[in-house]
């Protein structure tokens, strides 16, 4: 069936794969009709998809450094776009984003704008130039551009702090989904998730991760879009929700007016299970100040451009030109999911609060709601709760509470979709969390194996030895992440946003000025990274421990402070010290011209 070069056959290979996956969904749907249990369907979905990823990981095994670090620089633009989208969209995007929009409305939407707008910075300021440079890792660029091990090591440290903050959240999400789908305790499920993640990346490095991420993107986008379209049709909201939900959005506004937002007393709220929230904010009204919105969007955009696991995806394209276009495809594939999340939030909210819909629970009696099957299921899973605070016997808007994850996980069931969809959603969430975790663990392990071990400790190491070190590090970092994830220190979303702030505090200006300002030198870059990271971290600690902050910079946007300090430090120190050598300046000139050989020659 498949002849010739693998790369030339990619559309065919993934076409067959997509068809096969859809066939599998249909098979499960038939199984459900024939009496297959919900649990068996869940296990099949999770087991089957993990098996496929592991198979791809094994088929992509390699013994060459360029394959291991940058997938041999052969990944075509569209496929790199899909891989980047999977790399990018984490368990948080998949499971928690619609919930965030549902509960927080406009103030939260800054994340959607930020997490897509950041790619404009990636495409214009960085990706093509770093691709031309020919580095294997982001610290490789910093180390070569500025020279010296100190700058390289600092970049590795910033990368590790940011990526590690992020990866524990992803392993946590993998574990959560595996725990539910396989019905095993979370502490074990985390390690099941970890092993699956390592299966994708250990043998093939970046090559394995690339081809599994493409497969994971296909699973996650089907798993996200299918329910949105189905629910929309099921409740009669329109066959193409993105263009047709204006009436529903307006209707939610009407209902909010009618019910009003009643503030609950602290004593009442104390009886609500932890992690659940009520609807307290208007769905489509502007409920944040311009600066609150813009600062959050800006922090996320600059963070996007500084996160190494994203940047390194653009090292895998065949050319500089392809790197630029590939950024466009990445945002396109991300856009498909992000533009659907608000639609899902709208459908979910309307289905639950509109008394005219059969699924609506507001205005029904408490006893009636408590008797609904899906209410009982999700109440048991600690994701849904009603309580009769005012004692009138019916559920009011302020007496209904839900976990953010329930918007994605429970809405299919509430809207009366078959269980096979819930199994699909679990597989999608798992794909999203695994693909991001893969990219992050690989980014950290590669930085340490390439930049610390190969470039600093043992520059004469042979390829075979380098790759052994890289793989050992991958396992160690994975286990460290899983161990911390098993402790369940923090919610999924909080730590994700911090990762962006850490990355932008330390890396944004050293990367951007490295390309765009020839005068930037080693001393400046080191000062920028150290002071940026330290000041950002100090600000976070200060605000977390009760500090008032300034200029409206919160613990979610502390990167704005960190990166400003970084910029000032970098410019001042660069200007106070001597300008970079002629060789370095020539390197910068070379990186600005797409044609010709790459700046660093790699072994």
């Amino acid at each position: 069936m498949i002849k010739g070069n693998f790369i030339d056959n990619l559309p065919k290979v993934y076409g067959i794969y997509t068809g096969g996956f859809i066939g599998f969904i249909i098979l499960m749907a038939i199984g459900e009709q024939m009496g297959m249990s919900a649990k068996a369907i869940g296990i099949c979905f999770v087991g089957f998809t993990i098996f496929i990823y592991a198979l791809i990981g094994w088929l992509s095994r390699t013994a060459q450094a360029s394959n291991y670090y940058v997938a041999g620089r052969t990944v075509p633009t569209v496929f790199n776009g899909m891989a980047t989208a999977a790399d990018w969209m984490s368990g948080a995007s998949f499971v928690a984003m619609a919930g965030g929009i549902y509960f927080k409305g406009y103030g939260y939407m800054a994340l959607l704008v930020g997490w897509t707008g950041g790619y404009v910075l990636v495409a214009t300021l960085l990706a093509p130039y770093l691709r031309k440079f020919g580095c294997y890792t982001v610290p490789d660029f910093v180390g070569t551009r500025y020279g010296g091990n100190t700058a390289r090591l600092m970049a590795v440290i910033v990368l590790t702090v940011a990526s590690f903050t992020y990866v524990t959240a992803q392993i946590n999400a993998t574990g959560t989904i595996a725990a539910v789908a396989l019905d095993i305790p979370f502490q074990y499920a985390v390690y099941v998730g970890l092993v699956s993640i390592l299966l994708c990346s250990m043998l093939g490095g970046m090559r394995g991760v690339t081809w599994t991420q493409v497969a994971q993107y296909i699973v996650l986008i089907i798993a996200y879009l299918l329910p949105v379209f189905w629910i929309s049709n099921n409740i009669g909201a329109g066959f193409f929700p993105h263009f047709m939900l204006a009436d529903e959005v307006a209707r939610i506004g009407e209902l909010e007016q009618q019910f009003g937002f009643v503030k609950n007393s602290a004593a009442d709220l104390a009886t609500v299970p932890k992690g659940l929230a009520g609807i307290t904010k208007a769905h489509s009204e502007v409920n944040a100040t311009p600066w609150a919105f813009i600062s959050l969007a800006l922090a996320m955009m600059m963070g996007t451009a500084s996160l190494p696991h994203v940047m390194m995806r653009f090292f895998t394209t065949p050319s500089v030109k392809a790197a630029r276009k590939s950024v466009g495809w990445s945002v396109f594939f991300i856009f498909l999911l992000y533009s659907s999340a608000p639609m899902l939030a709208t459908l979910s909210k309307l289905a639950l609060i509109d008394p005219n819909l059969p699924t609506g629970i507001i205005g029904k009696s408490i006893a009636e709601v408590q008797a609904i099957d899906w209410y009982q299921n999700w109440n048991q899973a600690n994701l849904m709760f009603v309580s009769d605070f005012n004692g009138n016997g019916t559920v009011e808007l302020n007496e209904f509470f839900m976990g953010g994850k329930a918007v994605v996980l429970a809405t299919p069931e509430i809207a009366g979709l078959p269980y096979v969809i819930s199994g699909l959603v679990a597989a999608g969430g798992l794909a999203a969390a695994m693909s991001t975790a893969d990219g992050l663990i690989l980014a950290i392990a590669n930085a340490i194996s390439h930049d610390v071990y190969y470039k600093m400790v043992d520059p004469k190491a042979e390829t075979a030895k380098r790759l052994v070190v890289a793989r050992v590090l991958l396992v160690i970092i994975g286990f460290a992440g899983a161990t911390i994830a098993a402790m369940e220190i923090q919610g999924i979303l909080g730590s994700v946003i911090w990762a962006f702030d850490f990355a932008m505090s330390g890396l944004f200006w050293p990367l951007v000025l490295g390309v765009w300002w020839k005068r930037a030198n080693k001393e400046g870059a080191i000062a920028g990274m150290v002071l940026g990271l330290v000041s950002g971290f100090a600000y976070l600690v200060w605000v977390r421990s009760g500090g008032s902050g300034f200029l409206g910079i919160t613990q979610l946007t502390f990167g704005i402070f960190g990166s400003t300090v970084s910029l000032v430090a970098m410019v001042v120190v660069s200007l106070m010290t001597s300008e970079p050598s002629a060789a370095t300046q020539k390197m910068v000139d070379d990186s600005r011209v797409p044609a010709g050989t790459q700046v660093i020659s790699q072994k």
Partner: protein
Amino acid sequence: MAKNAQHWEKTRGLLFVTLAIWAIFSMGIFLFGAEMNEVTGPFGYPLTYWFTCQGSLAIFVILIFWFAGRQEKIDEEFGFSEKGDD
């Protein structure tokens, strides 16, 4: 070297234009979020709401492809583009 300098000048020009459009749709319009939301936007959604759900996001996608095309033209003009395609 003069050729390189000219190429870089044009590249920088394109960067500024792209970043200006980016700044408008990622930050600028949200200065007037509350006022803009009174207006009905595409498909009947409130305008600011539409921008956060679809508008700004779609503009970024188009903007990046447009930028990539323009930059390629600049590179070709100076004979700096890479041989072969992607």
